[in-house]
């Protein structure tokens, strides 16, 4: 260790050329930092901040839009549900209507058919009765004429006699 006391002080005395170079270098570096380096990075920082803020705003807008769309779709969905249930109810009502219609029509038809049948049976019965009466009358008259051996002259007598006989026959039928 030969740090001589005599020359030690010269460490603390700035040399002219050292001052010159220190200043030149500091000025160059300072100009570089002030005029180029820091403004450039500041611009980058500002741009980045703007981008991030813009991105955030955009994201928020997108979210709002998504929520609006979601609400719209949900509304549409619930509307569709309501419509579907309405249609189902309508269909059900219509179906029951159709069934009851068909049933009443069938009942009416059945009644009518029954009535028609009844009527036709009655008329046939009547016809049969009438024709039977005529034939039986004629048969009976002829038979009676043959039996009595005499001709019943008056057709009125004839008729009343036959009627009486048939009624008696009827009465006899009823009594049995």
């Amino acid at each position: 260790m030969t740090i001589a006391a005599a020359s030690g002080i010269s460490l603390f005395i700035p040399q002219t050329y050292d001052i010159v170079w220190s200043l030149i270098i500091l000025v160059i570096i300072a100009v570089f930092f002030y005029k180029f380096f820091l403004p450039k990075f500041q611009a980058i920082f500002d741009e980045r901040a703007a981008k991030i803020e813009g991105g955030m705003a955009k994201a928020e807008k997108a979210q709002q839009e998504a929520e609006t769309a979601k609400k719209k779709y949900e509304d549409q969905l619930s509307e569709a549900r309501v419509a579907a249930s309405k249609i189902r109810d309508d269909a059900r009502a219509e179906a029951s209507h159709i069934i009851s219609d068909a049933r009443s029509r069938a009942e009416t038809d059945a009644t009518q058919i029954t009535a028609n049948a009844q009527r036709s049976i009655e008329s046939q019965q009547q016809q049969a009765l009438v024709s039977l009466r005529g034939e039986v009358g004629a048969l009976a008259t002829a038979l009676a004429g043959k039996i009595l051996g005499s001709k019943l002259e008056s057709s009125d007598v004839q008729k009343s006699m036959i009627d009486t006989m048939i009624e008696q026959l009827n009465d006899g039928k009823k009594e049995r």
Partner: protein
Amino acid sequence: MAGFYSAQTLVAASNKPDYPTIQDFLPPEILFQGTPFAINRIILVRIIATVVLLLVLGITASRAKLVPGRWQSAVEWVLDFVKNSIVYEVMGELRGKRYVPMITTVFMTIAVFNLCGEISGLNIAATATITMPLVFAIWTFGQYWGAAIREKGLGTYLKEELIPEGVPAPVLILVAPMNLLEILIIRPLSLTIRLFANMMAGHIVLALCLATTQFFLFEVANKAMVPLGGLMFVAGFAMTLFEMFIACLQAFIFAILSTVYINLSYPEND
């Protein structure tokens, strides 16, 4: 280390280690001798460091993208650190904004210049003469006087500094000259000497470790000294790491003290 020291080692007689001397900080002029533009070893280191700093940061800035890569992120981290952790932390954003470029310049330049002491081939901090720290300190000096005159006016500033409120008159005889000395000389000089002495001491300790390593491992005939040489190498290794830390720490201290001095020129409540 090797390049610089081996040259001297060859010349030196090998009966004692090639200890560092203060001549390391007063190297001979090697270019433009005798003119105001003379260049010695330390100034050469300073010029190289400046060129590298400007090139690296210039390329970084001109290629700077919105989405940063790794290197750009690292540079941005440093800028952010100086802005938020030094300037805004001390002064607040409102006052601090105008001083961010200055403190950034001071911090980054001093850090790079200091780190030259740990770079093989350069082996001495570019701030290892009194002048470079002094120039930075004078810049700070100018800034805090400028801020004081702008914010308070010279009269009010001197009155507040020299005649603090509530100090009894007899004590003022002591306080006033002390405070004047403080704002005129002690602040810039303490900044200068703290940085310079740290760089000087760092260089001496580091060179001592490596010179003894070289001496005990290779130049001493007695091989029993080899373990000592090994120990000194480990010490040199540790000191290199420590000096890297000191380089950054001193840059930080210089930057934060400059900020504090400038902030002291502002009125108390703003």
